[in-house]
């Protein structure tokens, strides 16, 4: 008997008010430890899908089960990197990163250390005492990533976390993410516009079509973990990349 | 308990009964007799430890007496009657003034000479005052009312302004500023209440001797005060209310004397402290006539003449 899927979407649909459906008939079963990338055109409902899994908004059709519970009940295991950095303007960087740990009443000592380690990881070790308005756009997003990683949730929802970062930082954080995952496995839902990033990180890539958002194709990525940076140059990788790009292009018209 | 029931004064060898007198305004010569009795020790002689609690715009003497926060309080006889009709069981026992010092003041330039001339005018007065409708009835006039704000600048600025006042008080200030001011005493308006002290009905029943002692000592104080022995009392008043300067107090006392406010007219058989039953009866009838009462009020309810000393008792009717 296999373990039950950690996230199940059953014919899930979503519309806002009386508007047209944003998502329609989404069916997806995700195993514990999977890394699912979501790609699709702007406005196709990727963020909405993550918000559904997080229980921040209820589906208007179908059902979502997270770890055997409703999304709202499973929230303790989930954390979200929002599309915009969502920092509290009155807290310094370190205090912003510390926030979820504090709210969950983690020990002060342990959490200070963790905050420090995560800020180092995202390359903001010396920005700890700054206020959000003193940061660049990319720095804010990195603070938001550090905040999520410090929580070490079982399920991590990432909404274009690296969109505002340069390629180098991005590749570096990609590898860090896989490193953390190797030590301390989590299930990830990862929205990105970079097909290369999606293929490099994921176990499966979900390509969404727009108007309404539907699952166009699910592409399984066969490469074993750990994935070395050199993987990016292998012909197998490049071929899968090309295929995924083709699928993505197919959903647009 | 806030009930001002008599209790022994601390320390003193002869036990004095604690009594609180709630006045209706800040200390002023209109309370002179009480202060005189206090400073000269007349209350102490009578076995009372009196504390005079100064009033103000919102000191609510009837309520304080009714709730026991004060033993005696000062007010007009019509106030006592109204209070009874509203369920506040207070009874007047003596009068500090035979005539109310309240008056109407106006500028000489206004062309007013009698109450009749007030017809159609605007008067700054306390809204709801008993005298207003009775005056209108008596003189067949109609007036408009502006709420009294206790200020004088509007009077000064407008030669046609008519304002309710204490004859012992406001004319002094406006005269000083050069206004040619004339007055009409309200007691001539058709409605003439006493100014009285009163106590709670149940207190009177339980402590008649305290009421008797207080009344006698207060009348003694007032007699001497209007007779001109004002120095010590006024010194106390101005220590309590520094706004009271000698010139002003002299003016007030003189007005009280000139208009026979405290003594009344001996020719009519009036004397310090006296309250006549017939006058109260007439007053109640007048008030009932203008609908001041929510339920009928009887003389016996509002007035108890037993505590007046013999010299203040009205002469037997028919004399």
């Amino acid at each position: 008997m296999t373990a039950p899927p950690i996230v199940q979407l059953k014919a899930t649909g979503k519309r806002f008010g009386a508007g047209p459906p944003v998502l329609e008939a989404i069916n997806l079963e995700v195993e514990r430890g999977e890394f699912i990338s979501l790609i699709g055109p702007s406005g196709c409902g990727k963020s909405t899908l993550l918000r559904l899994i997080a229980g921040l908004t209820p589906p208007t059709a179908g059902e979502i089960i997270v770890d055997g519970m409703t999304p709202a009940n499973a929230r303790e295991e989930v954390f979200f990197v929002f599309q915009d950095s969502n920092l509290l303007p009155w807290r310094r960087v370190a205090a912003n990163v510390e926030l979820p740990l504090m709210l969950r009443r983690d020990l002060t000592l342990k959490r200070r250390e963790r905050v420090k380690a995560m800020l180092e990881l995202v390359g903001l070790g010396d920005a700890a005492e700054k206020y959000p308005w003193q940061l660049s756009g990319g720095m804010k997003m990195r603070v938001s990533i550090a905040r999520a990683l410090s929580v070490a949730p079982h399920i991590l929802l990432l909404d274009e976390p690296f969109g505002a970062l340069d390629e180098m930082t991005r590749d570096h954080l990609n590898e860090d993410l896989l490193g953390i995952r190797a030590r301390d496995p989590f299930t990830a839902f990862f929205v990105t516009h970079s097909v290369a990033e999606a293929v490099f990180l994921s176990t499966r890539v979900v390509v969404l079509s727009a108007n309404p958002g539907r699952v166009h194709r699910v592409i399984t990525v066969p490469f074993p973990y750990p994935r070395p940076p050199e993987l990016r140059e292998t012909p197998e990788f490049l071929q899968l990349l090309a295929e995924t790009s083709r699928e993505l292009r197919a959903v647009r018209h | 308990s806030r009930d001002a029931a008599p209790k022994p004064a601390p320390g003193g060898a002869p036990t004095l009964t604690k009594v609180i007198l709630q006045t209706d305004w800040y200390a002023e010569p209109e309370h002179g007799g009480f202060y005189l009795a206090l400073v000269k020790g007349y209350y102490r002689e009578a076995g009372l430890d009196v504390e005079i609690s100064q009033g103000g715009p919102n000191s609510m003497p009837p309520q304080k007496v009714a709730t026991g926060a004060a033993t005696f309080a000062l007010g007009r006889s019509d106030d006592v009657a109204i209070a009874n009709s509203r369920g506040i069981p207070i009874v007047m026992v003596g009068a500090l003034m035979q005539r109310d010092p309240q008056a109407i003041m106006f500028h000489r330039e206004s062309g007013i000479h009698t109450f009749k001339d007030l017809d159609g005018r605007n008067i700054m007065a306390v809204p709801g005052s008993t005298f207003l409708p009775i005056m209108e009835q008596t003189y067949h006039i109609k007036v408009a009312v502006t709420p009294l704000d206790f200020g004088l600048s509007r009077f000064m600025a407008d030669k046609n302004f008519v304002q309710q006042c204490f004859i012992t008080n406001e004319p002094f200030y406006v005269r000083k500023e050069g206004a040619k001011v004339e007055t009409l005493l309200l007691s001539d308006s058709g409605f003439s209440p006493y100014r009285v002290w009163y106590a709670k009905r149940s207190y009177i029943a339980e402590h008649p001797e305290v009421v008797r002692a207080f009344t006698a000592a207060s009348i003694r104080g007032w007699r001497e005060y209007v007779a001109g022995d004002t120095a010590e009392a006024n010194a106390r008043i101005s220590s309590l209310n520094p706004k009271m300067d000698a010139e002003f107090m002299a003016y007030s006392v003189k007005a009280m004397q000139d208009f026979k406010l405290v003594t009344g007219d001996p020719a009519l058989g009036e004397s310090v402290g006296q309250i006549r039953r017939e006058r109260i009866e007439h007053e109640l009838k007048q008030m009932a006539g203008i609908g001041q009462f929510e339920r009928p009020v009887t003389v016996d309810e509002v007035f108890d003449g037993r505590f007046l000393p013999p010299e203040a008792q009205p002469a037997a009717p028919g004399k």
Partner: protein
Amino acid sequence: MKRHLPWLLPVATGALLIAAWYGLKRLFHVESFVLPAPDEILTAAWRERRALISAVGLTAQGAVLGFLAAVGVGFGLSMFLAFSIRIKQSFYPYILILQMTPVIILAPIFVLWLGQGLPSIVAITFMICFFPVVANTTMGFISVDRNLQELFVMCNATRSQEIRYLRVPGAMPYFLTGVKIAGTLAPIGAITGDFLAGSAQNGVGGIGFMTITYFSQLKTPALFATGMIACLLGFLFVFGVNFLHWFLLHQWHDSLVRKE
């Protein structure tokens, strides 16, 4: 059931409070000339209905006009102050002085210049209501998002365009809070105005006049009835302002938009 909660809850609380009112009165023997019972107040209101109804018209007039003046002038003044920091530095202290001078001191001046009655009552209501509008609107104006300010700079917006299209809409939530406070103050302001500058024929003036009348006649239940009327009047303002809040903000502001 759930649909009706917004109505039922305050009614239930009201019932509890009224029960407590009766209970306390009984427990501490609070007499009616200090604190009348609700039924006594209603009875008194009914008994005095003729006087109260004609009084409420006058007071409502003063309250509405004073309120509108306070909102209009307060808003305009805030806009004027927003034009430059120099203007604000020059004038704000004097606006504060206007607000902080007890109205009883200024009332005789109003009466002298505007005459007794409505104009002075409106002026006094205005004096009492306008500052919360100014304080809130000004705070709203200076709290505007810096990034949006930079957008307007890039658009070469004039100062008045910036105020009109950026600061005014951005300050709406603050402004409306100020208006809400002004609304609750307006009936009190008109009553105070009536105290200080009102006048009455045949013993019937505005609510303020009736308040002193009942006060001086020891008609405590009727006195509380005037308070009740002041509250009812105030609620009309509050409803009006709440509607305005909804009308102006429901499409975009976080206080009202429901993100599903």
